[in-house]
């Protein structure tokens, strides 16, 4: 691509949500208040697998101030929800499949009364055999969580001749890697308010996908989509944990039953107990290479536990399979994956959709391979790196926008500059990743509406939920660049189903790419009318016009120009309106059912992290000291936001590698709160060196890809590999807690 000469992109702007958040004016769902508002709560199961013998809410209903108690019988529409498969009841009807399943909901005058009412409800269970592990689930005679089998999904990917290739390899490394169930610990617990006005149920919610929520609420209520309005209010993070329905359907039911606004705010415990978790996975890998280091074959068998409901599980398994050989050219690949239903906590989307898990595996393998070959880990990766023209295991041929080698080189350069000379018990490790942007082999469109107003300010309407990651800032910058206006000229309205078009989920690192393209297409459409009007006025061909810095001028003679306000006056004179609607769906194909061949993603992001750690061999403590992380983002829309994503991602990677683990027993989470589920504090955060690499290509808006999840992934294996290299030991299970590290040190 030609040298990009951009007026707005690639700089740093004040985030659209910064002022309100800093001053405290931003209203989160828990801050909303309406007249005559009731409070809602959920009565949940305390057992993992059972049928309900008796449920009695009479004492709760007798409590003055309790407005209603609803069970599955009170649902006017359908009683199954779920992002991909509709397998989760809004309120339990046939049976309980996990601790925390919703049995009944209550609305009352105060939060205290809600809690009192919940304590007065009585339930008796007929217990069923709980399925609590992969092995449990796969036993032929075991109880079934859903239907006839506990096998939730089985996937197979194959390319080349794997067995023949292994027979020719000089070096083969093997390892079985285990990652644990993790919790997002987004800072704002799920919350929302529902109310009914003019026959429309409005749900204000903390969510990552208002348009999905609308469909689920409409089906639950038996209403047309246009009688439900979902408004995403200021949302305190999600990381994938707010893609599932949380309070939305329950609120709509309660508001409908009482005719009053109803609010629900989950406690931290309730939020962690029932929101989706990161899939725990076990990955058995075999990697073969020639003696000069060229990888010939990779074989992986992975198993995962999706818990009681599918949630985003199908997307996790497919993405994990497609990505598990790492960002390398591997001519022969065989992957098999089994995900099962159990009565454990539901697992779903969590920053990376399975790629963080498989990165621990493929980078653990690379670290072992580099040692076996006695090769420099960066050189080994460069030798095998995906590059323009690489043929993937899915058969897809990569285009020009592949910046993996550049991330390796940039990270290595920085390492030479900032890393310390290695002392005893210090180690340096490399971790890499690739990430297909958008949903895997599935349509996932987004749209945008734009209107340039008479004073040359702009209203941009996108479905894309800004949950703090900065999508509204990104869309404003893209619109400003395309229209030739300034960033401050653009006002963004986002994720309100009565105002904005569908944007799809703020997930899969897709919004910069997909809603960004939709925004750009909408702006191009509005620009058509603007350009025609300007061309008529300036008497030049409209193809010659350049829109930039609030001016429109001829590329042939910049003196032939008019300002944007002048242009808008001209538009008014001729009765023209500058409006545009854009939609974009990535160019992918469905994957072959047998071999998974096809085009799963239109573009890929790449990243390399180099970590320096020091291990206290007397206590097993891992001190993560420095993290260098280079990311190919195509084109940085906003440099500071990209750096912020990388820094935040690295901190989350540190948590994944050394602290975090959801402990559960008999389906019950034992550490659902911050004092027991440790995430890094500011005191733990290492020195982070973010590096932006730009290999733009033609697909993204001005070449932009996505960085939300890529920012996390390579940090995890980099830290693990650094610890391995510090101690000369291999680690196959995360997190690297002091107690576990000590066991290794002491043998």
């Amino acid at each position: 691509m030609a040298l990009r000469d951009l007026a707005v992109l690639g700089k740093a702007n004040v985030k659209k949500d910064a002022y309100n958040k800093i001053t405290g004016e931003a209203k989160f769902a828990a801050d909303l208040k309406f007249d005559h508002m009731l409070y809602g709560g959920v009565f949940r199961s305390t057992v993992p697998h059972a049928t309900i013998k008796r449920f009695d809410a009479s004492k709760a209903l007798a409590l003055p101030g309790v407005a209603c108690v609803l069970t599955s019988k009170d649902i006017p529409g359908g009683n199954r929800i779920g992002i991909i498969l509709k397998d989760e009841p809004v309120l339990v009807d046939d049976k309980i499949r996990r601790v925390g399943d919703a049995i009944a909901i209550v609305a009352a005058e105060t939060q205290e009364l809600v809690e009192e009412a919940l304590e007065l409800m009585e339930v008796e269970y007929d217990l069923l055999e709980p399925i609590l592990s992969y092995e449990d689930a796969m036993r032929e005679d075991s109880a079934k969580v859903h239907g006839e089998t506990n096998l939730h999904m089985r996937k197979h990917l194959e390319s080349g001749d794997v067995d023949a290739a292994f027979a020719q390899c000089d070096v083969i490394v093997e390892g079985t890697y285990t990652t644990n169930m993790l919790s997002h610990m987004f800072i704002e617990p799920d919350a929302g308010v529902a109310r009914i006005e003019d026959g429309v149920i409005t749900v204000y919610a903390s969510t990552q996908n208002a348009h999905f929520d609308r469909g689920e609420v409409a089906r639950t209520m038996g209403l047309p989509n246009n009688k439900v309005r979902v408004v995403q209010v200021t949302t305190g993070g999600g990381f994938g944990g707010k893609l599932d329905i949380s309070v939305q359907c329950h609120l709509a039911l309660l508001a409908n039953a009482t005719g009053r606004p109803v609010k629900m705010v989950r406690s931290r415990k309730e939020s962690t107990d029932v929101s989706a978790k990161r899939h725990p996975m076990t990955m058995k890998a075999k990697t073969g290479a020639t003696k000069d280091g060229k990888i010939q074959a990779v074989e992986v068998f992975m198993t995962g536990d999706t818990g009681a409901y599918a949630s985003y599980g199908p997307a996790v398994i497919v993405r994990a399979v497609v990505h598990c050989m790492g960002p390398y050219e591997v001519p022969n690949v065989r992957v098999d994956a089994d995900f099962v239903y159990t009565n454990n906590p539901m697992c779903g989307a969590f920053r990376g959709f399975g790629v963080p898990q498989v990165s621990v595996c493929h980078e653990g393998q690379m670290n072992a391979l580099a040692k076996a070959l006695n090769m420099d880990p960066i050189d080994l990766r460069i030798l095998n790196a995906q590059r323009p023209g690489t043929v993937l295991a899915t058969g897809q041929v990569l285009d020009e926008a592949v910046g993996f080698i550049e991330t390796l080189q940039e990270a290595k350069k920085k390492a030479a500059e900032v890393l310390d000379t290695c002392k005893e018990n210090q180690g340096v490790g490399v971790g890499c990743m690739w990430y297909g942007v958008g949903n895997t082999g599935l349509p996932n469109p987004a749209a945008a509406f734009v209107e340039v107003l008479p004073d040359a300010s702009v209203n941009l309407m996108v479905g894309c939920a800004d949950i703090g990651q900065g999508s509204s800032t990104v869309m404003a910058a893209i619109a400003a660049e395309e229209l030739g206006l300034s960033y401050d000229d653009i006002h963004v309205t986002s994720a309100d189903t009565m105002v904005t078009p569908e944007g799809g989920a703020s997930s899969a690192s897709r919004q910069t790419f997909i809603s960004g393209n939709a925004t750009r297409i909408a702006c191009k459409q509005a620009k058509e009318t603007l350009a025609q009007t300007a061309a008529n006025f300036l008497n030049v061909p409209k193809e010659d016009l350049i829109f930039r810095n609030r001016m429109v001028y001829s590329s042939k003679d910049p003196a032939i120009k008019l300002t944007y306000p002048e242009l808008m006056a001209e538009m008014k004179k001729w009765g023209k309106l500058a409006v545009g609607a854009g939609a974009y769906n990535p160019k992918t194909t469905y994957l072959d059912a047998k071999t998974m061949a096809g085009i799963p993603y239109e573009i890929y992001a790449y990243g390399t992290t180099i970590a320096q750690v020091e291990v206290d061999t007397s206590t097993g403590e891992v001190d993560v000291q420095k993290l260098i992380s280079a990311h190919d983002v195509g084109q940085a829309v906003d440099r500071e936001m990209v750096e912020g994503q990388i820094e935040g991602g690295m901190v989350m990677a540190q948590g994944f590698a050394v602290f975090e683990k959801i402990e559960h027993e008999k389906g019950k989470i034992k550490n659902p709160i911050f004092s027991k589920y440790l995430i890094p504090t500011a005191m733990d955060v290492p020195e982070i060196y973010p590096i932006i690499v730009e290999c733009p290509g033609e697909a993204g808006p001005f070449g932009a890809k996505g960085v939300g999840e890529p920012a996390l992934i390579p940090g995890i294996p980099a830290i693990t590999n650094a610890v391995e290299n510090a101690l000369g030991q291999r680690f196959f299970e995360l997190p690297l807690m002091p107690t576990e590290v000590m066991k290794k040190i002491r043998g």
Partner: protein
Amino acid sequence: MIEQRGKGYEYCRPGSWEELAAILCKAEAGVMFLAGGTDLAVDLRTGKKSCAHLVDLKGLTELQGIAETAAEEGKKGEICIGSLTSIHQLEINPLLQEKAAALPEAACQLGSRQVRNRATLGGNLANASPTADTAAPLLVLDAFLELWSPSGSRHIPVEDLWQKAGKTFLAADEIIRQITLPLAPGRGTAFMKLGPRQAMDIAIINAAASLELEDGRISQVRIALGGAGERPLRMKQAEAFLLGKEATAEHFAQAGVLAAQESSPRSSRRASREYRLATIPVLTERVLLKALSRLS
């Protein structure tokens, strides 16, 4: 005096000792005392703990404050700390920083800033966690406590406060009124804690030490550990071993091994007994070295 209904208990906040005595004489059973409430308020809400009467001590303002009594003829100087003094006040107090460094050093590692603003020294002690961060420092600072109940006051060494995890020897109507630290000008004291995270973490084990030297040899030493047993403990065999010896890393390491021998840690969700036994010598040695470095 404020009175209101709480969740299953009567809340009251006496403003004087007389009022407190009257409440305690009237209440039959189920009295709990509320100080900072950083643990108790949470436990009452989640139902982990319950009581009939919640007696808030924050109305007794004289329970807050840190003051020094200078040394006099025949009497050592001391620092007196009101039991409701906040952890944050301990953290920033120059007197303590200068003369009893282990305590502010522990205070600044307890919980979060918000917790430290509310949590109190007396509350931390009466809560009787085996890893209470202020416990080990008070043990090595040789602190004694003034206890108060309607039937009178008494003094005990801080060591005699705890029975086991979550249980003290305080009578049902008894509170900690004051914590007194006898001053010893020549000593160096230090505190360290071991946990996976650098802040806002409950210790797996914690340790404090106090050292004095005379002619290059150890003339006074106290070592205390949290997480080494059912309650915070002095490591008396390790201390006896060090007394009279030179303050060397080798001796400190040997003392650490002795400390592990006299410990009986439990396995818990945070760490196994084995891990605690393996790290007790390390932390003991390191805290002694740190205390040594504080000797002028």
